[in-house]
């Protein structure tokens, strides 16, 4: 049943619809799952991709930006080697073949249970994960229509998991995954979700953090320069819980990353630390909403963006404070260092506050390299490129310097270093 008036599709829309149709026969799922897929595909066919006329896509005019589907290295190429971001991490790997590989299942940390999403597709338990929010929810549509792999991770209440858990998605042509991660009450864990490789990929993750839990979550996207990537992370946070989210984009061609956080329990804290390294011709859009729903919660969102070449970045950050959410303290800052005339970064911070006793603020700045600083460093013999790299690192360092976990600090520093070395 299709109530929408058929419309003429762009080349990008045609390619996307064709990709979905071609994949359908091989996708896993029971009747419920397949119904969700078909609904998503139908919606895409009817509504098309969102254009800049849709507010949520105003700075990422997907209808015009998506010209075709990048082929990547080709379906047969196999997943690239993927190292652990942090040495010793438990690796859960998925590639284009739809098979989620669980390394060292025998050696699972105490209190951790992991499973491939395969059985949830087969049973239909995965159906609710294939949700499409509206007729301009392109991320939801792509994911629901094509997700074929992913992981379920359960961390038991009270478990203190020292070993980081990395969900690793290495695409060679097309990789679409959904994940569900539940962190039990009082548990402590670090999770890393890495999207890399080429072609088209989508990653939708549902993270639930129960009361009193303490979670560090790293979202790393370092895909190929022409890769098309859709990401979504939905987080529900209970009472007295702490979530630190590190969202890093250092690759990709056309990237949309959505982060939706619901702070549902009192006395909990959410922190976003975002590092966007934009070079070449990439377009990276980070669209975030944090919903403060109850009293006495805090959040800080700090982004540091570095733009070179013709890189283009977008941050849409919305903080919503419900009428009941008195005593909310929320601060958002988005700072950009612009290294080229052709690059740009568009920041749209928004506060939507219905409570009257809150402390909320936001700010966005764009600056260039400080010429006095550059002169000083060069006057000591540091060549221009190296001096600029030092200053870029200085700009980003504030984001990384207050990370307590040294291994994580060093790992993200390495991501920055390798980006600096190649751009």
């Amino acid at each position, binding site marked *: 049943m299709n109530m929408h008036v058929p419309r003429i599709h762009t080349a990008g829309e045609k390619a996307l619809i064709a990709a979905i149709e071609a994949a359908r026969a091989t996708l896993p799922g029971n009747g419920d799952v397949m119904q969700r897929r078909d609904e998503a595909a139908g919606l895409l066919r009817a509504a098309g991709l969102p254009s800049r006329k849709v507010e949520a896509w105003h700075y990422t005019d997907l209808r015009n930006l998506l010209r075709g589907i990048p082929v990547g290295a080709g379906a047969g190429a196999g997943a690239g080697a993927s190292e652990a971001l942090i040495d010793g991490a438990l690796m859960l790997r998925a590639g284009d073949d739809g098979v989620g590989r669980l390394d060292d299942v025998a050696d699972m940390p105490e209190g951790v249970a992991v499973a491939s999403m395969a059985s949830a597709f087969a049973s239909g338990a995965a159906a609710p994960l294939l949700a499409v929010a509206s007729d301009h929810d392109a991320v939801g549509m792509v994911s629901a229509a094509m997700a074929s792999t992913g992981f379920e991770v359960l961390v038991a209440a009270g478990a203190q998991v020292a070993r980081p858990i990395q969900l690793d998605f290495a695409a060679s042509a097309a990789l679409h995954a959904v994940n569900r991660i539940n962190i039990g009450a009082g548990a402590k864990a670090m999770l890393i979700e890495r999207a890399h490789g080429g072609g088209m990929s989508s990653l939708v993750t549902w993270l639930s953090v129960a009361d009193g839990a303490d979670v560090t979550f790293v979202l790393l996207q370092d895909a190929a320069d022409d890769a098309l990537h859709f990401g979504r992370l939905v987080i529900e946070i209970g009472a007295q819980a702490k979530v630190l989210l590190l969202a890093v984009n250092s690759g990709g061609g056309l990237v949309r990353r959505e982060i939706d956080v619901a702070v549902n329990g009192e006395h909990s804290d959410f922190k976003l630390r975002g590092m966007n390294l934009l070079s070449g011709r990439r377009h990276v859009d980070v669209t975030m909403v944090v919903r403060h729903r109850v009293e006495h919660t805090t959040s800080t969102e700090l982004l540091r963006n570095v733009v070179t070449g013709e890189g283009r970045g977008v941050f849409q950050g919305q903080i919503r404070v419900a009428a009941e959410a008195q005593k909310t303290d929320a601060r958002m800052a988005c700072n950009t260092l612009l290294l080229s005339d052709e690059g740009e970064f568009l920041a749209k911070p928004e506060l939507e506050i219905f409570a009257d006793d809150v402390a909320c603020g936001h700010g966005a700045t764009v600056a260039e390299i400080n010429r006095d600083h550059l002169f*000083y*460093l*060069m006057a*000591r*013999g540091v060549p221009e490129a190296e001096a600029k790299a*030092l*200053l870029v*690192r*200085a700009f980003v360092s*504030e984001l990384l310097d207050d990370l307590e976990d040294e291994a994580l600090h060093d790992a993200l520093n390495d991501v920055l270093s390798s980006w600096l070395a190649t751009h």
Partner: protein
Amino acid sequence: MLEIRNLHARIAEDGTEIIRGLDLHVKPGEVAAIMGPNGSGKSTLSYIIAGRDDYEVTEGDILWNGESILEMDVAERAASGIFLAFQYPMEIPGVATMEFLKVSMNAQRKARGLDPMKTPDFIRVVKENAAKLNISMDMLKRPLNVGFSGGEKKRAEILQMQLLQPLMAVMDETDSGLDIDALKVVADGVNALRGPDRAFLVITHYQRLLDYIVPDTVHVLYKGRIIHSGTRELALHLEENGYADIIAKAA
């Protein structure tokens, strides 16, 4: 060693001429003092020697060991042995002082075809030199110059000079903001580096510094030109009589 010939330079942005036909010759081993009223162009001259691109040379040349440096960028000039001690050293948040010292030393070594320093050697040489300048290791743990007092910044400049061992140091009002004890510490640092192959261009407002760093030659810079040159006695004369009579004579 350094030969400046009929130098004319202007502010790149608005074209205002600041240096107007300046001649200066500094020999190896020489300590040349440059004095002059505020606004004469002393700092501008030091920036132009260092290669700052806010200024455009419109006429004349700067020869360094016989070759023009006008086409060299700031880092290349530094690596060739020219050091500028800033009148106002920059605070650079986020850049760790120790890392900066290491990066700059190794950048210069690399430009001269030397291997990078090993970390223990680096730390040792920094500690030795810092101790002589009363610079605590605590200070060096901070970001570059951030939160340093005026005197600490100047001492940090001298530390950098000692570590980088330049062939010529241009010191822009290194004495300003220093009390007498700090002034002596700084002067000792400079004097320790004096030698037959190394030259200094000491820019100062006051003769006081020259009691401690005794110059071979003294030059008066006024309105972008050297209007008078002499020996150490010239500095003493200026201290007593001011610039008026020399300016009048030159006019």
